[in-house]
């Protein structure tokens, strides 16, 4: 947006304020606004809300949900790097039978490849080195790498027919999180914070927890913009909780500051900011005031939620003893449960290290061990607490991996390249059919043959479960109404209970 345009928009905000708030016409304006179905007054143009200007129980830009919600919150266990569906969920014995044979062109069908394998003159098929067994009521095939997930399979809805448009990490993760491959759009959590707001005034609606995998410790990095607010007000950005002395950076007061001085400083600052806002009308000033207040409240709420010392021994037996070590995926899963108990709307975990181009068997073994027990424990723990009824848990990466080996296939070693055409995710929780598999890939595990689910479909389904029509939660920016699912996305009704 050009500077001129920004200034123009600001002056419009100011004019509207002046028109509605400062003149005798204000009252008439209110009547007019309500007649036109506009709600100028319950929120400012950027969706900044304060308790005094919400109406009718609405905590976000939507006055009410579009339809009754099945879930109140989401825990998204993002497996960054692209876990191999072929070693974990999508059992393809044919690949073991035809091990070493070249991938038939009729199957590849012109699929573009990454620069990492496009130079390969052979694409030797390779099956999973790990066995699969059947579990649960429906005899779902699960790899030996995921013994705990296998035990919880009757609670999971495994979608084997995910597909995406991106083939490299950053665009693919960005696509999943924001609905667009190019950076700049708000993340899912930001959309929810904007649309339906927070249930807990003392914690942000959108929290982020990161962990590094042991499978590929120097794996793909993540960027903070993945939990950014895009063009939404910066109030809606994800807040990262770190595994360190200061879980949230810059939250603690400097030494020697008392609660009272802090309060006095904030009050004075708010009044100055208010003055500035009245003059300039920059909505970011308002969100800055709100952020200071949120940070103030978080000074007590965050240490409370990050403290896992009081958890009993059997909880660690569930999540695994790694949960004792801050910054591990297991510890983050335990924190996710605590945040869910506190009604945080969107809890985003990222576990890095799934990008196993080479030495996949060795790496995925460690990587799966990182996440298997804790993921299953999270489902189980929420279930016994009665929280799974209204929570959605999502487990999955940004794409899958190829059915052929990247690099030379040896007796006990191979790698797999990125594969956007088909991969597996699972969901569990309220409104989702438990214990089913949805969608199918061909015997080569390369193409989807039944019930494809696009990234936008997944996003639409997630929104649907939260009571939001994905087509109706929009935000007008630079003359266009944007939404998470862009111009696509269909709710996958078949997996809804």
């Amino acid at each position, binding site marked *: 947006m050009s500077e001129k345009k920004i200034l123009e928009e600001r002056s419009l905000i100011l004019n509207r304020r002046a028109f509605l708030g400062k003149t005798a016409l204000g009252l008439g304006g209110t009547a007019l606004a309500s007649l036109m179905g506009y709600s100028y007054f319950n929120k400012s143009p950027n969706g900044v809300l304060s*308790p*005094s200007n*919400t*109406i*009718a*129980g*609405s905590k976000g830009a939507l*006055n*009410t*949900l*579009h*339809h*009754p*919600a099945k879930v109140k919150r989401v825990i998204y266990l993002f497996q960054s790097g692209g876990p191999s569906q072929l070693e974990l969920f999508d059992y393809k014995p044919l690949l073991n039978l035809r091990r070493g044979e070249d991938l038939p062109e009729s199957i590849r069908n012109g699929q573009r490849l990454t620069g990492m394998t496009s130079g390969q003159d052979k694409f030797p098929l390779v099956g999973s080195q790990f066995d699969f067994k059947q579990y649960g009521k429906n005899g779902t095939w699960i790899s030996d790498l995921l013994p*705990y997930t296998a*035990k*919880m399979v009757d609670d999971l809805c495994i979608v084997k027919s995910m597909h995406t448009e991106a083939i490299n990490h950053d665009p693919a993760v960005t696509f999943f999180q924001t609905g667009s491959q190019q950076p700049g759009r708000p993340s899912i959590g930001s959309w929810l914070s904007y649309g339906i707001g927070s*249930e*807990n*005034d*003392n914690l942000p609606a959108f929290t982020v927890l990161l962990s590094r995998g042991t499978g590929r*410790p*120097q794996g793909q990095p993540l960027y903070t913009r993945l939990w950014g607010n895009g063009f939404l007000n910066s109030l809606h950005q994800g807040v990262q909780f770190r595994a360190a002395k200061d879980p949230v950076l810059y939250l603690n007061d400097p030494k020697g500051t008392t609660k009272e001085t802090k309060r006095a400083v904030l009050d004075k600052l708010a009044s100055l900011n208010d003055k500035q806002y009245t003059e300039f009308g920059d909505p970011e000033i308002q969100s800055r005031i709100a952020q200071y207040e949120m940070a103030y409240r978080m000074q007590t709420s965050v240490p409370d939620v990050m403290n896992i010392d009081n958890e009993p*021994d*059997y909880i*660690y*037996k*569930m999540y*695994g*003893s*790694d949960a*004792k*070590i801050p910054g591990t995926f297991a510890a983050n899963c335990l924190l996710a449960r605590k945040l869910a*108990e506190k*009604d945080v709307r969107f809890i985003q975990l990222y576990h890095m290290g799934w990008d196993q*181009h*080479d*030495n996949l068997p*060795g790496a995925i073994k460690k990587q799966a061990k990182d996440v298997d*027990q804790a993921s299953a*424990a999270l489902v*189980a723990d929420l*279930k*016994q*607490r*009665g929280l799974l*009824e209204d929570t959605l848990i999502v487990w999955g990466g940004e794409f899958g991996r190829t059915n052929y080996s*990247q*690099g*030379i296939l*040896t*007796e*006990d*070693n191979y*790698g797999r390249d990125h594969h956007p055409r088909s991969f597996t995710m699972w969901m569990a929780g309220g409104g989702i059919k438990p214990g089913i598999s949805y969608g199918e890939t061909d015997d080569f595990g390369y193409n989807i043959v039944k019930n494809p689910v696009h990234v936008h479909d997944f996003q639409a389904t997630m929104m649907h479960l939260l*009571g939001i029509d994905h087509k109706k939660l929009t935000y007008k920016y630079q003359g266009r109404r944007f939404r998470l699912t862009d111009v696509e996305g269909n709710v996958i*009704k*078949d997996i809804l209970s």
Partner: protein
Amino acid sequence: MQIHLLTIQIGNLHPLFVHLPIGILTFAFILEIYLKIKKSEQTDIAKLALGLTAFTALLSLGTGWLLGDNGGYDEVALSRHKWMAVGLTVCSILLFILRTLPHNWCKKIYVPLFIITLGLLGLTGHLGGNMTHGDDFLFKQHAVTELAIVDINKANAYKDIVQPILDSKCVSCHNPNKAKGELLLTSKISIIAGGENGSILDSVNGEAASLITRLHLPLDDKLHMPPKGKVQLTSEEISLLKWWIKNNNCFDCTVEETDVSPQTKSILKTLEKDTTALGKLTATAEIVPLEWISKMNANGYSVTPLAEKSPLLIVTLASKKNITSKDFKYLNEHAENIIELNLAYTNFNDDLASALPKFKNLLKLQLQKTKITSAALKDIDKLNLLESLNLYGTAVKSDAFKYIKKLKNLKKLYLYQTAITNTELARLKKEKPNLITKHLADTLFNNAVLNNPYIVDASDFFNDKLDLQLEHVFKSATIFYTTDGTEPDTTAIKYTSPIRIKESKTVKFFAYKKDWVQSDVVTANIKKSGLLLDSIWLQKKPHENYRGDGANTLKDLKRGTVNFQDGAWLAYQGENLNTTIAFNEPKKISTVSIGSLTKPTSWIFHPIGYKVWVSNNNKDFKLLKSIKLPIPKKYVDDAIAFYDITFEETEVKYVKIEVENITKNPVWHPNPGGQSWVFVDEILIN
């Protein structure tokens, strides 16, 4: 042909023109009254109005005549409308003439005729309106049509599903009054009969029935149905019509007798009347005023409408610090609208529980982690719709079952972290088999494995002694260890205080904890750093990306990590590392240890050979030892390790070492033949 088209065009203007005489005649009437009251003699304006009425009435009549000739209307209704319009036109011309003539008798019949004309106007307009919008347009009951299908499988495919779609989207044009395209869609007989283009159900030339194809044409296509501007069918409605045609447009089948795809099934399911408790409550509850909801939220209650237009509410007091009976008094005002009440983590207790029966429509009640006991539930049976009850982490005991048992609709009960035992749960389960009380199998997480113990402040080298401190994330775990290289078990030495080490040693240890599977055995090679290397230099500069602190990197007693960019490593690509070490005084030496890294994914491999020369004058070097190691045959995990080169004790001043690089990636490597690396971080001499 041209003329015919033109008449259609002109005829279509009828709906525009008809409104002119209606408006102008009414205006003329009002004008006459006004002039009468004002006793005004200005009659020109009235004459003008009447003239205009007559003229526009003629226009309307003409265009209407052409439109009627185009067909598609009920004959009887059309002829009535037509002839009444003729009468109306004649009357309005007469009115104009009477107003202009000066005779006295004209004035006498002027007023009665005016009233007759107005009457005619009303009737003609009404009949015309009925022809366009349907007979019942004006007096139709706009009641919400309630879905009457109770069991979709038993519903009649045509009568209950197809005809209602036709009724809502097609019949306004294809009815006996209008019959566009000579097609009626009002009954089985007329649907089978089809229209001017023949059957709408049969597939022609392999194309689908025209009932379907017409729906799929582009919106701008003249043949598209419903025509542009009319309300279109939804995609669900289209798929239902398709489903019916596919089943040979069966008029008498019930849904279960047809072939239904899963997609269609889910659409059909939505037609079923919602007989769930939620559905019934939604239909019967009264809307709560927005002001009340706003007021409650402003006062710190979280009251959320279930959804748009829903009268039902979700209430949570979970963020309230102190709940009192007053809070419930406020909520009581609309207690019947509340279907979910969340009191979790609050001070809610047995005394406050007397407020619960008022919320008789609750479907979900969350009381987890509150201060209640069984007594709080004694009136819980008043909440007879309750489906989910959360009591986890409360002091509720099994004596609460006698109250809970009365809840007929209860599906889920959460009793985690209560004093209730598995046997007591099993007893309840026997009496209420449909109630889910146990949410997890006891054995689910039985085999939890302890993670590994670790060395605190692991310094990798020591000079004369080291106190090795071991720890585990669980303070309550026990660590067992050996220092003689044997595998430890629970008979090994129990760790209680730091282990004193004076020589290079291999320490093996693991953690044990009751009810857990013990950890892996951890092996630590503790090295004595030995002699101080006085000076060291390299024959060739290392790769500029990995040059650490120059040659000194090799004697700084700082180990590198698998993250080879940490600055603790020296590296060469495709060539060997050659270094010379000098002692200030001659020293007796017997071991040279070299620390290196392997990380095949980054083309880094352990050395495949070492050579050690010694000299006392830095000129005449004697080869003391040469070692050749095998090239790795397959992938190895990333690791750092020391290689010890031992020889007979020799007294020397200078030591020259060559570390041999594998130089090329092995054949099994993803990039065989690539120039590989050798990484060295430390050289120890003892």
